[in-house]
């Protein structure tokens, strides 16, 4: 079931001549060989990540403009967010990036038992991240910080409530956008976990894991920028 052929690290695993194709050949018809298919998959993901940079860039530009104009109100609103939970979330997500990096490494080495364990760890860390976010959202709801729906929080005299509401709109818009990307990533990891367990991948063909890894690292990089910009606005 699992091709657990341990290979001495450092040797080019792909070059084993006697490697019997444990899995049926996944070469798509329009490609010359598996190498081209892997190159195309990774390049496709990188181009998609370029569009994602612009996709997150749009609201961040608007956030930067309003941050410049209403800096005091944004600082007052940002102080309402809990920095410990945010920092913890960042570490959780960095951890999931670590497990993904190790999973891709293990896949290249053909150690598919550790690949499935690491992918499982990634999914668990992802769910923990979303759990903490849900906790924060319920905390914000209780305090009446939901823009447009329930924004009843009290502000100290110098703060304009509408600008604070604008800050919280960007907070929810950016973090929900990020959370949606997390969900898509978790769904992808679940599918890949099943495929790994069914032995679909081999040392010669595991590009999907690497491509999903690129996507996940990008979602982590987005949070790396969102955390200071949203949580750590101070005078």
């Amino acid at each position: 079931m699992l091709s657990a052929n341990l290979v001495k690290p450092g040797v080019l695993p792909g070059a084993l001549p006697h490697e019997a194709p444990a899995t049926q050949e996944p070469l798509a018809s329009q490609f010359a060989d598996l190498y081209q298919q892997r190159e195309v998959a990774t390049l496709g993901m990188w181009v998609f990540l370029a569009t994602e940079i612009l996709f997150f860039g749009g609201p961040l530009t608007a956030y930067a403009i309003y941050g410049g104009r209403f800096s005091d109100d944004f600082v007052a609103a940002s102080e309402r967010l809990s920095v410990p939970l945010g920092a913890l979330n960042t570490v959780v997500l960095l951890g999931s990036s670590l497990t993904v990096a190790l999973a891709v490494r293990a896949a290249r080495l053909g150690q598919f038992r550790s690949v499935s364990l690491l992918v499982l760890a990634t999914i668990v860390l992802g769910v923990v991240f979303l759990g903490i976010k849900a906790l924060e959202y319920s905390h914000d709801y209780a305090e009446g910080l939901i823009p447009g729906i329930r924004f009843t929080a009290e502000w100290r005299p110098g703060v304009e409530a509408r600008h604070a509401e604008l800050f919280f709109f960007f907070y929810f818009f950016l973090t929900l956008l990020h959370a949606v990307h997390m969900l898509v990533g978790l769904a992808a990891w679940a599918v890949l976990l099943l495929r790994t367990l069914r032995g679909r991948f081999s040392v010669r063909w595991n590009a999907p894991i690497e491509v999903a890894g690129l996507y996940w690292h990008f979602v982590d990089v987005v949070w790396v920028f969102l955390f200071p910009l949203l949580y750590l606005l101070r005078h």
Partner: protein
Amino acid sequence: MEAQAPSHVQSSWAYLTIFAALVVLTGTTVGAALAPLGHWHIPVALLIAAGKAILIYLFFMHGLESGRLVWLIVMGALLCLSILLSFTLADYRSRPDDSHLRGLRSAACEQCRTTSG
């Protein structure tokens, strides 16, 4: 070219050290937020975040070994985003008072001000 020829594979220790560096940087950015940096808060926070992003790109995303084309794609997207940001900010920064235009006032067309015809 026969099968998939992945590049060299780093040891798992390398990844662990990168992860540790990232966690340390997260700590520093939180620390920097508490320090009284005044209007330097955001530049410092962005600098640290950029550092973490570069670490993730180079090591976790194999940026080092994935060739010039991928680097070009990432730089292209970041350049495009910086164009959007810088031109929009240029508009907002130069909007309240156009005092800097007083200098150009002499260049303005005289005929437009005197009653002609």
